[in-house]
Each structure stands twice: as C-alpha cells, then as structure tokens.
C-alpha cells in the first residue's frame, strides 16, 4: 500500500527528518505524563528511602519498650502514632518495619524474575524435551494456590527471613517461567531468528542478541504485577508467625502481635495493615502504569 503512488505523479516534498525517538525515552515520556503512576512511584520510593535511611531520621528506638507507656493512643505527646503492646514507639516501628517488609516483599520477585526468565527463555528457545521437562514441572506448581504453596513451604521450613525468601521465590518462579516461555516461543517463530541462525550464530548468541531484548519487557512488566501479591503474602507469612521472628519490626508481625489490643486501642492495632495496603496499592497501580507506558498487552 505504501508503495503505490497516490500523489498523481507530482513531486512530493520530503518530510523533514526527525530524530527518531528511542523506545525507552518514549516510555519515560509517557510515564511522566501519567500523574497517578508518578504519585505511586513517589510513595513507593519514599517508603523505600525512609526504610533505608531510618536511623538518620531521628526516630525513637524501635526495640526499646516501656512497661508504663503501653498502647498509648494516636497523637500522644512524644509518640505521634502511639505505642505498641510493649510500649515501643509505633512511628519508629512502622518506618523501621519497612526495611524487612519491603525487602521480603520485593526480593522474591526479583530473584524469581531472573530464575524464571532463564528457565522460560531456555524452554521457549530450545523447545523439545527440555521444554516438556521445564513446563510440565511448572504445571505441577500451578496446582497449588499461591497462598497455600507459600504457607506449605514456609510451614515445613520453619520461621525465618531466609526461609520466607526461599518459599516466596519458589512460589513466583512458575508464573514468570510460564510467561517467559510463551513470549519466547512467539519470538522464536519469527523470521529474523531463522535469519540469524542461518548466518551461523549459535544458540547463546541468538538468545543474547536477538531474543532477550524482545522478551524482557513483557516479562518485566508481568513481574512487577506480582510485587503487590508478594508483599501481601510476605507480610501474611509473618502474620501467621512463620515469617519474621519477634522482636524485629515487620508490618505483618506487628499486625499479629497488636491483635491482642483490638479491644483496648482498635485503630492503633490496624496501623501496620494500612502500611501494607498503601504499599500494595501503589505497587499495583505502578505496574498498571508501566504496562500501558511500555505498550505491553496481556
């Protein structure tokens, strides 16, 4: 169509040459024009920075309790968000709590992203028996609802930060592998892969040069959509008592220990959950924003 002459034989002025916009600068430009996504990115960034630099913020000691200042209500002098069941400052514990909560909530998705991508790209590119072995194993893990699988593995391994990381990473590898395999099989069938192979490039070179760049965006966007679930699950494991151990500040664990206070100081005891909710909401909206900015369709 583009080649047919529609100008009736007249000479056409060539269009002024514009510097073509790169993919990533386009994504960046679209993100900046999306206020909701920017706000969510700001909130997540602020939570991460506050958690990382918590010792510099001049907060109270999150481990130091007081028998006489237990369960002080919100707005107490010196404890703006009150104190918990052991008299520890809630504001300090909520901000310090971000350290473990965000780390255990985000790290498994990062790990699963690398492992799942590697498995999925291998399965999708190599195909055949390798594909069958990897993908049928993945199918078995899909037979477990994610909450059940996380609790099963963590329950068997016992409480602890490393055990939580392990069990959540195992939970998120199968879905990422499945997406990576689907995208890679799609790319693998395209002509330019055959062309690259015809020039004598070996599998590793073709994957590195031609496949990864084309599959990583959709896998990445999919992985970001899992971060919110992972946050909720990670805090949920601690809430059940099979994640972080006391006295570490962690939102899920705090929510659990403060349950004893719902008749004394109900709104105080709901605070750690508010933090989990805000974070997971922002992560979800951020992922939606990224998906539309990166033009990924599901």
């Amino acid at each position, binding site marked *: 169509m583009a080649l047919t002459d529609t100008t009736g034989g007249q000479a056409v002025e060539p269009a002024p040459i514009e510097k073509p916009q790169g993919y990533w600068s386009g994504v960046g430009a679209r993100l900046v024009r999306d206020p909701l996504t920017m706000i969510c990115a700001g909130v997540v960034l602020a939570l991460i920075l506050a958690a990382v630099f918590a010792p510099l913020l001049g907060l109270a000691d999150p481990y130091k309790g007081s028998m006489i200042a237990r369960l002080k209500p919100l707005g107490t002098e010196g404890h703006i968000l009150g104190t918990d069941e052991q008299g520890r400052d809630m504001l300090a514990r909520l901000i310090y709590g971000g350290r473990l909560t965000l780390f255990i909530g985000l790290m498994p998705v990062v790990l699963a992203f690398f492992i799942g991508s590697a498995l999925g790209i291998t399965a999708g590119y190599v195909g055949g028996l390798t594909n069958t072995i990897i993908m049928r194993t993945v199918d*078995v893990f899909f*037979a477990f609802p994610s909450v059940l699988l996380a609790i099963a593995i963590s329950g068997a391994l016992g409480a602890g930060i490393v055990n939580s990381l392990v069990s959540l990473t195992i939970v998120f590898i199968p879905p990422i592998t499945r997406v990576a395999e689907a995208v890679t099989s799609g790319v693998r069938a395209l002509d330019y892969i055959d062309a690259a192979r015809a020039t004598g490039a070996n599998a590793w070179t073709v994957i590195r040069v031609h496949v990864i760049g084309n599959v990583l965006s959709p896998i990445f966007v999919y992985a970001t959509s899992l971060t919110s679930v992972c946050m909720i699950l990670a805090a949920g494991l601690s809430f*059940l008592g099979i994640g972080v151990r006391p006295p570490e500040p962690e939102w899920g664990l705090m929510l659990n220990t403060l*349950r004893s206070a719902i008749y004394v100081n*109900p709104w105080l*005891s*709901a605070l750690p959950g508010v933090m989990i*909710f805000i974070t997971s*909401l922002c*992560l979800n909206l951020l992922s939606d924003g990224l998906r539309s900015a990166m033009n990924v369709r599901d």
Partner: protein
Amino acid sequence: MLTYLIRRLILVLPVAFGVSVICFLLVQIAPGDPLTAIMPVDATAEEQDAMRAAYGLDKPLPIQYAIWIGNLVQGDMGKSIATGRPVAGEVFGAVQNSLLLAVSAAVIAFPIGTALGFLAGYFRDTLVDRGVTAISIAGVSVPNYWLGIVLVIIFSVNLGWLPSMGAGPGGSSEWQWNWEHMRHLVLPAVTLAVVPIGIVARTVRALAGDILSQDFVDALYAKGMSRVDVLRHVARNAAATALSVMGLQLGYLLGGSILIETVFNWPGSGFLLSNAIFQRDLPLLQGTILVLALFFVAMNLIVDVAQAAIDPRIQRT
C-alpha cells in the same frame, strides 16, 4: 466432547502425581529428624533405629514414597503426631468447614463482581467505569487478613453487631444451619469475598468491553434487535471465560482462606494447617496440603470441562 473429556482426564494424572511428590518432599525439607517429635529425649541409639525401622524411615526415599502413596490410595494418610488421630478424618472435617466458608464468599463475590464488571464494561470510560476500576484495584490490593481485623473492629468491637470468633456460639466447631451459626459466618465470608470481587469485576469488565466492540453487536442492533436481546448474546459470549475465572477463584478461596481462618478462628483447613505448623505435626501438614491441592486440581478440571461444554470453540483447539 467425550474425547475432550478423556484427553483432559489423562492430562490430570501427571499433575496429581507431581502434587503428591511435592507434598511428600515437604516433610523431607523440614529441618530436624522427624523422630525427635515422637521419641523421648533419652532414647538410646538402638531404640531410635527400631523406631526408624517401624516407621519405614530407614528405607530409601523412593521406597518411602511408594509406601506412602500406597497407603494414601487406601485412604490412610497416617496419624497426627499431636492428637494421634488419623489425619484423613481431621482433614475432611476441617475441609467441610472451609468449603462452607469458600462457597459463601463465592455466593457474595461472584454476582457483585459480575454486576460491577458488566456496568464498567458497558459504560466504558465513564465515571461508572472509573469507580468500578478503583474498587477492583483496591479489592485486589487489600491484605484481606487486615481487612478482617478492620471489620472486626467496626462490627464486633465498636458496633457489637456480629461475633468475631469461631463458627458458632461457645466456640462450637460443628456447623448447624441456624441463625446463631449464620451470624458467625458473615464477617469471614465478606472478608474473603473482597479479593474475588475485584478479580471478577476486572475480568468481566474487559470481557464485556471487548465483546461489545465486536462487529456482530452492531449487526444485531442494525437488524433491529432490542437492547436486552443483544445483551443476552453478549452474556452468552462472555459466559465461558467468566465461569472459568470464577471456578479458579473458588479454588483459590478454599486454598487461600488460611489467613482469614486464622483471623476469625474459623475451624477449617487453614486453622488445622496453622496448628499443624506450630506443633510441627508434619503428617497433618502434609495431608491437609495434599487434600487442598488435589481439590484445586479437580476444580481446574471441572472448570475446563464446563468451559468446553458451554463454548464449542474450545473443543476444536
């Protein structure tokens, strides 16, 4: 249809096998010797060896698996270490309670989610659509164990309308169809319904939007069909996918109710599971997870078959 059914049934077997292997391995990855839970501390090495032989723990893993699976197909899932009772009985009693909770949540969530999603899809890019989208994003983002606590604070602590604990008056764990028991079901069921409302609304919105923008809808209007009749066509087109999402959600509700059951002390499988974890009752842990996972597998199968029965396009692929 029959060939589809058979093909689908054959595909389930390797998955069920894999699930049983994972459940078997769960006990193997648990730290510590499984004997320490049952043996007295001062047991001699000979006594330990005798016990190990009695439980078959001295045999290689594949043999142990074969013995375990052999007992399993005869309905013997071992004995609970904490109570000494057969695991099978404990699990099935608890699963019934969980199923009751999951189905109640589904009865709340599916009609609401479908209605919201359909409204949003029909009135796309309007205020209604934005409202529903906000509700569904909030629904999938909320940590539901926290929402349960908030509902308890509002409806039990502040208003005193509904009970916050257990499945019946006086901590009764036997379900009965009466008013007192129903009151105990309200808060956990509503809490559990929030996430599937979000997911179903989002799915139905996308489905309705896609189908309404197809040419056949314009064609139906053009030939003078009434709005209601056109919507019947749309509903029929959306039914298969919507039902499959709901079927999966029901499976997730059963497996995912563990946290909610803990919040409300609901005597279901999740409650059993957390007891098993804290008493390091590995046979009970293994049995509960196996039953829940197999239920999920069966649910998947039913969903696929139902979908194929409703939508003739699926069988051909």
